């Protein structure tokens, strides 16, 4: 029996028992009861302890009753702590305190919601308040990092509009987007949530295992995140203003100045025996002038602003919630920004107790300008000035006044910024409309019909101005303009009937069946033209182009699903639980015979804490649950719409004395007419423990997800002539498996003035390949050679290359590195070169000596979240750590060795080997590199990727005594204040694709430190 029921009975029994006793004479006590927000609380039950007197507060929270001096009053209300006060005066006001953990919490599950305690699958709930603590994030999933066990969030980009990668309990497919499916109030919205204003969110449910997600069938292989937006409630009115103003700052890497650059580049030539072709004379070195490209391009800070206004409220018949938000983030360069304006209106009309109708309306506008990447700020030759000499600038347009790099082919970063200012802008206008009708009939049945419509229009404008910085290499001789318009229209129609009933007080049954139809269509149009008459701002449109027009456009179905679903949940006396769910999905992406697939799931749970022997004998155990689940989910994501068709594409040739382009066709793709779903089979086992009224919480799970019929590009022999790229055809062929476990420990103390809580979570996931197309291996990460190799049975995406064993310090060491006949294994080596290991001992260093040199998968990731408050002050802090991942640092090629005459990190000149004993890790600077120190993919590129990041520190103060405002709060927050790592590159937090995890390509606009000030006001 729930606490709620116990409480009711408790009050009832007391009232009944006491009703016949004559009241004692005394004083009249009266007062006002308010809630935590100092709003009047109607319906609070007030009893004189040990007596018969009782009263209930009225609509305004007022009460009065008869009692004796020195009696005690007990105030009680569901969801609030009982308060006991000795009567010292005739007026007793009471502010009720909410109960820390209300057992009545409801949790959204697919197509419904259930009480938290009845959940048998792995679902993590995160409250909106938790997510909204950090107001600097444009995408709320950034804030999920380290919050939930089993959920890995990679915040790899810090540029405006960046989207993190979210991976729930490991990946299930080598291809496709690894992000989960997002569902807002029952309507799927895709795999990117930049459009969501996090201040709209009431709570987020992360569905982690198949017993929770199977009801979403084919879209659920990567897990599902359910977002519930804020709804108005009866009798409560609120007006909130939240403002946050932040300043971002990217920590500057240490980059070599002109002098060191010159020394490095000269050294490379001296060591290559080409001293006479040294790029710089001693005099030039002595008078070196550095252009600090980073400082030229970067402002010291850039703003990020988040402002929100919200109203919520409701009456018995009508509830509403309205929130308007504006978010803007700029890049630290002069160009690059992302702005989002959203409003959300959620309304619900209650015709009567049985019929509800709701309308959620969410229009939004996003605009952005792309941010140039930061690669060239480091690579650019520092001896080159920003601008050409003044006399050369005469007559040039503003894009052409820049100096071409003197010594390498890197494009002038300031020139790039100048063009970026004009050359791209995007705007997305979108609107989600979600309506539902909910009818209760025959007492225990509920019919729900929900239609979600999603419109969006994305418009991208590009303009490439005419410019000449260097005619051959850095120029655009014809200006061009293009516009792309992408209109998306999608709808979802959910129809469900549910049946809820308790039999004989112990058999609780909840059954649901439904039909779902979903379709989404993209219509795009693209136009392009060249030679705009001038650079005049208002001429940068297609209609002004004079030449070489082209256009294209088509309709593309993004999703087409028709599904049947069903679920039965049963529990016996809230102790033994069985849940079964089923979904049958049909998708347009498959040929008719493979169109439908079934996705079943089962889960079982035992709530031991509801057993008498625990309740009675070990009362300090407040929670003890064991649950397990099995299920299948599907995936169709990697496929486009035409895999089962043989298609033709346009191609042109030329005929005629007067050459005429003739357009014809070629076979573009051959069909796989057997293509079918990927299936992920998921098994998990979890426990959940609480002690001392759940003050101490401890939970964990082990899980295993195995994908079969994984959709992979199978490569047929090239002589097949199959026209697909590299003769690869999408085929159901592979299998991978993610195994792991997760642990969470929490402590919270909500008593007294000093309150604090801490939550630590730990996730270990390991993804292995079971079977691969053609028996594998699967190579990925092209960088002149493939950087990763995935083999059957092995970890997915391990780095593959040569092992090294230090550097040759002198000729003697080179001479000692021989095969069994005394032949030199590295005849081209010189002192300072890398010693490659002859792993197979065949006396030759070749491809057969390659081995696994590292893995980009972390051994574990960890989150720590701490918050404390004392009276008005509050402090919170979050840490995130990743341990065990190796990084393949491609930037060593340029920034560690100066390849392509690129500039380097500061200190390279000294760190590189320059004589016996000077270094055993950084090879000699040598232009020729006959030994292929840097040409061979080897472990000299591998760095330790461990890091610990302080995600944020927040310090706030709440003013409790204010006349007009309710508890205004101000706070100061710092995002990313500290990173602890040995990694020498820009940022160790990396994620590319499933098989190219943790490769540093050097162009990431990494995460800035953000200082922000915020204010929350309530009226």
């Amino acid at each position, binding site marked *: 029996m729930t606490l709620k029921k116990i409480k009711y009975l408790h009050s009832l029994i007391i009232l009944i028992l006491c009703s016949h006793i004559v009241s004692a004479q005394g004083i009249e006590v009266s007062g006002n009861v308010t809630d935590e927000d100092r709003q009047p609380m109607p319906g609070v039950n007030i009893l004189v302890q040990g007596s018969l007197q009782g009263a209930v507060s009225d609509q305004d929270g007022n009460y009065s009753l008869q009692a004796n001096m020195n009696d005690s009053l007990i105030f009680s209300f569901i969801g609030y702590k009982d308060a006991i006060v000795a009567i010292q005066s005739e007026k007793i006001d009471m502010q009720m305190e909410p109960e820390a953990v209300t057992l009545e919490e409801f949790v959204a599950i697919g197509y419904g919601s259930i009480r938290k305690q009845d959940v048998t699958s792995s679902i993590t709930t995160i409250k909106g308040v938790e997510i909204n603590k950090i107001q600097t994030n444009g995408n709320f999933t950034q804030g999920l990092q380290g919050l939930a066990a089993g959920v890995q969030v990679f915040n790899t980009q810090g540029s405006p509009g960046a989207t993190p990668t979210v991976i729930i309990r490991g990946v299930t497919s080598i291809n496709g987007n690894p992000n989960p499916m997002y569902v807002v109030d029952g309507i799927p919205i895709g795999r990117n949530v930049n459009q969501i204003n996090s201040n709209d969110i009431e709570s987020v449910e992360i569905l982690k295992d198949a017993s929770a997600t199977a009801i979403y069938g084919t879209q659920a292989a990567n897990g599902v995140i359910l977002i519930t937006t804020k709804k108005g409630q009866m009798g409560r009115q609120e007006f909130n203003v939240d403002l946050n103003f932040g300043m971002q700052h990217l920590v500057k890497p240490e980059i070599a100045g002109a002098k060191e650059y010159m020394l490095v580049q000269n050294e490379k030539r001296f060591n290559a*025996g*080409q001293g006479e*072709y040294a790029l710089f004379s001693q005099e030039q070195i002595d008078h070196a002038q550095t252009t600090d490209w980073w400082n030229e391009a970067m402002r010291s800070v850039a703003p990020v602003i988040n402002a929100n206004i919200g109203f919520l409220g409701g009456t018995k018949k009508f509830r509403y919630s309205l929130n308007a938000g504006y978010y803007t983030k700029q890049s630290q360069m002069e160009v690059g920004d992302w702005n989002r304006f959203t409003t959300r209106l959620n309304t619900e009309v209650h015709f009567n107790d049985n019929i509800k109708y709701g309308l959620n309306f969410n229009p939004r506008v996003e605009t952005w300008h792309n941010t140039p990447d930061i690669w060239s700020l480091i690579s650019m030759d520092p001896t080159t000035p920003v601008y050409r000499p003044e006399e050369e600038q005469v007559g040039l347009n503003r894009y052409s006044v820049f100096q071409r790099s003197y010594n390498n082919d890197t494009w002038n970063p300031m020139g790039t910024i100048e063009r970026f200012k004009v050359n791209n802008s995007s705007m997305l206008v979108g609107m989600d409309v979600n309506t539902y009708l909910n009818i209760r009939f025959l007492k225990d049945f509920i019919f729900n019909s929900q239609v979600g419509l999603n419109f969006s229009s994305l418009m991208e404008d590009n303009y490439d101005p005419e410019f000449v910085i260097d005619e*051959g290499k850095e120029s*655009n*001789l*014809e200006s061009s303009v293009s516009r792309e318009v992408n209109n998306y229209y999608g709808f979802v129609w959910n129809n469900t009937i549910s049946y809820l009933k308790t039999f004989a007080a112990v058999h609780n049954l909840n059954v649901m069946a439904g039909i779902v*139809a979903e*379709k989404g269509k993209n219509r795009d149009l693209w136009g392009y033209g060249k030679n705009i008459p001038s650079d005049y701002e208002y001429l940068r449109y297609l209609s002004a182009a004079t030449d*070489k027009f*082209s256009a294209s456009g*088509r*309709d593309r*179905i993004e999703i*087409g*699903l*028709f599904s049947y679903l069903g679920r039965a949940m049963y529990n016996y006396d809230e102790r033994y639980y069985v849940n079964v769910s089923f979904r049958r999905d*049909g998708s*347009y992406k498959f040929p008719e015979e493979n*169109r439908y697939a079934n996705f079943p799931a089962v889960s079982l749970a035992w709530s031991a804490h509801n057993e008498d022997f625990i309740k009675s004998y070990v009362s300090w155990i407040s929670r003890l649950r064991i649950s397990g689940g099995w299920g299948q989910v599907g995936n169709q994501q990697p496929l486009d*719409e*035409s895999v089962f*068709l*043989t*298609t*033709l*594409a*346009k*191609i*042109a*040739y*030329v*005929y*005629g*004395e*007067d*050459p*005429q*382009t*003739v*357009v*014809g*066709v*070629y*076979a573009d793709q051959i069909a796989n007419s057997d293509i079918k779903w990927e299936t992920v089979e998921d098994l998990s086992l979890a426990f959940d423990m609480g002690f001392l009224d759940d003050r101490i919480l401890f939970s964990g799970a082990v899980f295993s997800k195995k994908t079969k019929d994984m959709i992979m590009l199978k*490569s*047929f*022999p*090239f*002589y*097949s*002539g*199959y*026209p697909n790229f*590299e*003769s690869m055809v999408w085929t159901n062929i592979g299998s991978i498996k993610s195994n792991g476990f997760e642990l969470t420990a929490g402590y919270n103390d909500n008593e007294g003035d000093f309150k604090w809580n801490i939550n630590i979570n730990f996730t270990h996931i390991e993804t292995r390949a079971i079977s691969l197309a053609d028996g594998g291996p699967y190579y990925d990460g092209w960088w*002149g050679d493939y950087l990763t190799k995935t083999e059957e049975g092995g970890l997915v995406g391990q780095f593959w290359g040569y092992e090294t064993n230090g550097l040759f310090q002198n000729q003697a060491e080179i001479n000692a590195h021989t095969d069994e006949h005394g032949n030199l294994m590295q005849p081209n080596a010189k002192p300072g070169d890398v010693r490659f290991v002859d792993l197979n001992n065949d006396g030759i260093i070749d*491809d057969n000596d390659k081995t696994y040199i590292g893995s980009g998968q972390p051994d574990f990731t960890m989150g720590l979240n701490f918050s404390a408050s004392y009276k008005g002050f509050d402090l919170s802090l979050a840490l995130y750590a990743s341990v065990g991942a190796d990084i393949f640092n491609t930037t060593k090629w340029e920034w560690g060795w100066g390849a392509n005459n690129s500039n380097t990190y500061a200190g390279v000149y000294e760190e590189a080997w320059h004589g016996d004993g000077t270094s055993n890790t950084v090879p000699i600077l040598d232009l*020729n590199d006959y030994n292929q120190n840097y*040409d061979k993919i080897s472990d000299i590129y591998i760095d330790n990727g461990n890091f610990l990041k302080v995600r944020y520190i927040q310090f706030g103060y709440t003013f409790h005594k204010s006349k007009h405002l309710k508890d205004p709060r101000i706070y100061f927050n710092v995002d990313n204040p500290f990173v602890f790592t040995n990694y020498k590159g820009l940022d160790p937090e990396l994620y590319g694709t499933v098989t190219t995890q943790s490769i540093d390509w050097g162009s990431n606009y990494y995460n800035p430190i953000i200082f922000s000030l915020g204010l929350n006001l309530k009226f």
Partner: protein
Amino acid sequence: MKKTIYILVLAFLVSACQKFLDEPIRGVQTVDNYFTTSDECESFLIGCYQGMFQDDWWKIQFVYLLNETATDDAWLSNPTQAELDYKNFSQFQMTPQNDYLYPFWEYMYKNIFQCNMALEGYADSPVKETDPDLLMRLTGEAKFIRAYCYFELAKNFRELPILTSTMTPEELNDVGLSSQQEVYDLIISDLLAASKVVPEGYPSTSLGRVTKGAIWAYLSKAYLYIENWKASKLYADSVINSGIYSLEPVFGDIWDINNRNGAESIFELQTSYNPNYETGNSLPILSGGREDHGWYYCAPSSHLENAYLEAGDIIRLRATIITAYNEETAEADGVGKASVYDTDGTTVAVSSFDVSRLRDSKSMRINRKFYILPEDRMESYGHTDRNRIPKNHIFMRLGELMLNRAEAMWHMIHTTGEASFSEGDIINGDLHEIRNRVDLPDINSSGDQLLLDIYLERRLELAGELKRWDDIRRSKHPNDDMPLIYHIMGSGGSFVQYNTQENTDWWETQSPYASAEPNNKGIDFSAGKEWLPIPAHDAGYLGVIH
């Protein structure tokens, strides 16, 4: 009653959802119901023609260039950017994993697939009834292109899988390697079939399609490769005697960008500049100077230049090599000006072609046959439009065919004894015409020396046209009956000897970039390396062990 309603509702839902999921693909053609009209049959062939040289540089065109760098005519050049896989071509260190080898193999087979699909489509097409003549001609053209692709493959790979139909994955399992003989049988039977249905010429709007003459020329060449000298001569005769083709009077005009489908051209790649399609040729960019929008691969060698100078062949030298060599001082001074001669070989078209623009090369020479004079360049030359350069590429011209015939005739005299003519007929016939055009006297040699002179003539005539790689592997030295490459490459090879001992060319031996490409290029050649390995990707399927 209620039950019936439920069943009806259910039936409605099931049928509704079937319809709901039947989404046709929009804006993309599929092969279902294709080949139903004449236009569709014609359109499919455009893919076949285009597939011979492909649209993007790396698919096929670049491989011809890389292969040429393994000859004595050219260096790989561009030492600062050349990838290891490029060097593997030029230095005989080819591996089956090479990333620039497999596209050539792959795209040739893709085009064979396209031709097979065309042939299958034509065989079942209703156009057979409505326009049988057209369909017959298209079938012939498709067969020619299929034969062309197999021929290009057969010249480079010792054995090949043969596919004459589009195959399902299961059917592929039964495909194995076929011998050169079997491949040439297919090539010749396809060419013969095509020659019967393809016309001698087309209306001017269809110029560029394969003609009977072109097919005969390829028959002549294919027979030359299998050393059927008589048949080779026979088909060469057919072309030459047809009177359709004649030698270009001015040698330099042959490769002039403005001389499209010239008098001498028998079959050539058709190009145009089109902003929407890549219907151009990328070779001028790939071989052009680094500071002249080019990538500078495959630079002519001093060895080739010397061959011209020794032969006193200034006209063809100037039409083949742009050199930084200063003719007046006979010295290379490193700051001089390179001279580019106009197509007539006499006037200096660009008096100050800055040598500094030739930076980053082993040899500082440029292939004149691919070079385009600045005034002939399109506006966007070298920028984004590297695959759109409207310069036709000649696959087969009369000059080559005449030299084929000269060689076949020599063999008919000396090898098979089938000849009813003498050496004088060769010298005064085809060789005379070829040499007379470039103001050279007639050859005065006989026997084995005559054959070597025919080979030399071939080198001087065709250098820069990407034929040398094929020729030095096919042509056999009269002394030992081994392909020429065995005499040119390897430690004792003439080219290796020249570069390691005799070469005094300042650029190739002393310039800053000289050391970046080894002077002993070719030293790693050994028997068998004249064949390219079957790419690693396919080797396993074919049971090839590398």
